[in-house]
């Protein structure tokens, strides 16, 4: 009885984790293809791809490369960033209610974009809006790192994030309040709701390198997150440099989520819910939940973006509205069920 037991406990966690990641990669790929195939106009995919490969700038080729593909790719990239950052934040802060926006980075990125919008720069340069968002996220990360550098506790980090979030939210409200006309205000509000519609490959090329760098920084903290399950002193005694861990996490989150918000607006609840779904599947070890959380985030955002396009509502529902509408009740149900299990 004992020998097979120990065999099972040795091999199962890693093997099942690998199976989970493989399954989620497959699901993400399927949803990317589905996302490319679905749109408001019928598109002959093979023909469009053939035209593009042959270098013919036909209408189907343009629709595929300039509309469908960027939308699908951004869905996957933004979703992976949100899921991964959510898992990293919950692991790092040892708080199941932490989300990618807890450090104020999302709000600051949104504020950066709104400032650009308000300043009228958005019309003169296509990428002005996302660049403004990235600038906002960068400033926020710098601010959080500086505020946190004065102490080592994670509580200080959360408080700094809450302060920053409130400030960015207040300034965004101020921009709305002072908006020159109701249409400008409406446009800002719609942008803040989050959407992947009408993005181009330029958006993909802008956020891709930033996101990949952010992912690498956050994924490099996996073992430290495991050790942090036992508290900061124990993690430090196991040889982890907690200052380096904090800087990697704050910078990585700013790069991934900041550039995500900059290209897509605020998409809520994905980063909060995903780690809760993944945790029971990987034995709750924070480091083991990073890849599956990123991939499940991509799956959820791609899925929600498909729903947005398949629903007959006009105007099109905003992606952030759908994720929040589905995510919030789901999270409540999940917490309720877990609470009852105790």
């Amino acid at each position, binding site marked *: 009885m004992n020998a097979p037991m120990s065999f099972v406990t040795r091999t199962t966690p890693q093997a099942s984790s690998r199976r989970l990641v493989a399954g989620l990669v497959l699901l993400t790929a399927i949803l990317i293809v589905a996302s490319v195939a679905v749109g408001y106009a019928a598109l002959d995919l093979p023909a469009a791809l053939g035209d593009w490969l042959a270098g013919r700038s036909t209408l189907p080729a343009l629709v595929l490369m300039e509309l469908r593909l960027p939308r699908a790719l951004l869905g996957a990239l933004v979703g992976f960033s949100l899921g991964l950052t959510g898992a990293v934040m919950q692991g790092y802060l040892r708080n199941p209610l932490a989300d990618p926006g807890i450090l104020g980075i999302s709000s600051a990125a949104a504020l950066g974009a709104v400032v650009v919008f308000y300043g009228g720069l958005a019309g003169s340069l296509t990428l002005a809006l996302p660049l403004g968002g990235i600038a906002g996220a960068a400033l926020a990360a710098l601010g959080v790192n500086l505020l946190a550098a004065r102490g080592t506790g994670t509580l200080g980090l959360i408080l700094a994030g809450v302060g920053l979030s409130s400030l960015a939210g207040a300034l965004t409200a101020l921009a709305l309040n002072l908006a020159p006309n109701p249409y400008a205000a409406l446009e800002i509000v719609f942008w803040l709701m989050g959407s992947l519609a009408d993005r181009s490959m330029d958006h993909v090329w802008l956020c891709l390198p930033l996101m990949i760098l952010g992912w690498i920084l956050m994924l490099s903290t996996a073992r430290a997150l495991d050790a942090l399950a036992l508290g900061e002193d124990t993690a430090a005694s196991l*040889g982890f440099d907690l200052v380096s861990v904090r800087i990697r996490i704050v910078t990585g989150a700013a790069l991934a989520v900041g550039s995500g918000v900059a290209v897509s607006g605020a998409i809520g609840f994905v980063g909060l819910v995903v780690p809760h779904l993944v945790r029971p599947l990987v034995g709750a070890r924070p480091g083991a939940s990073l890849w599956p959380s990123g991939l499940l985030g991509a799956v959820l955002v791609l899925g929600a973006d498909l729903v947005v396009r398949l629903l007959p509502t006009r105007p099109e529902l905003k992606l952030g509205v759908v994720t929040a509408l589905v995510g919030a009740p789901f999270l409540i149900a999940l917490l309720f069920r877990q609470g009852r299990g105790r």
Partner: protein
Amino acid sequence: MRLSAEELRVRLQDRSILDGVSLSVEAGEFVGLVGPNGAGKTTLMRALAGLVPPSAGHVLLDGRPLSAISRDERARRLAVLVQSAGIGWPMRVSEVVALGRLPHRRAFAGPSEADHAAVARAMARADVTHLRERTEPSLSSGERMRVLLARALAVEAEILLADEPITALDPAHQLDAMSLLRGISRAGTGVVAVLHDLTLAARFCDRLVVLSEGRIVADARPALALTDPLLRAAFGITVLRGTDADGTSYILPWHRSGRLREDDHDPAGQDRS
């Protein structure tokens, strides 16, 4: 192998916590660190572990300052069991204990056979093998403490620093844990444990270091360290003394002697001295 502190001073938020502490622990020794609440025991343990920087003095590992030793080497040579640690996520016990192997793991590599063996040994020693599939919310506080002790043992370090390792345990497991700590010290590990139970500390430790108001007031074999005047001055208690049938002497805290109470009302008193 020797871990030592020399004239260690630690100030936290403008309050002097440790005021010139010197002590050492050698391989094969089981040292009990005792003292009343607020004496600075936990701060001393954290300073010995390199978790809090001293404002003056050094902590030396085999004569080298702790600050000159790399984090990785320090993590392999010094195992630390912190006070009232919790387990943040519903991880399985076997995975919690395996965290003790992180300092030995290579980058991008899974646990090795040696890691699995060390985890199994640590779980057996701390009597948690039967709990291996259990997860955090279902553990009692005594079970959790033994799991965390197993985690610290799994490091298989040369020095083990344990802050209150037996506080939450029932009497049988307290005796087991003290025998275990003495056993691993006999196997060559230097052990320092913060203890509140003077009876068990006196019975199992090779040496007792008594800390009071940030200073060491005794550092000797238990029988020499815990004298009546010292117990009255440092702890504010008087004890019963007796001898077991096999000739082992024991002490039992019995009465409050009242000396400590004046100090309790003046917690900042040591700052003004």
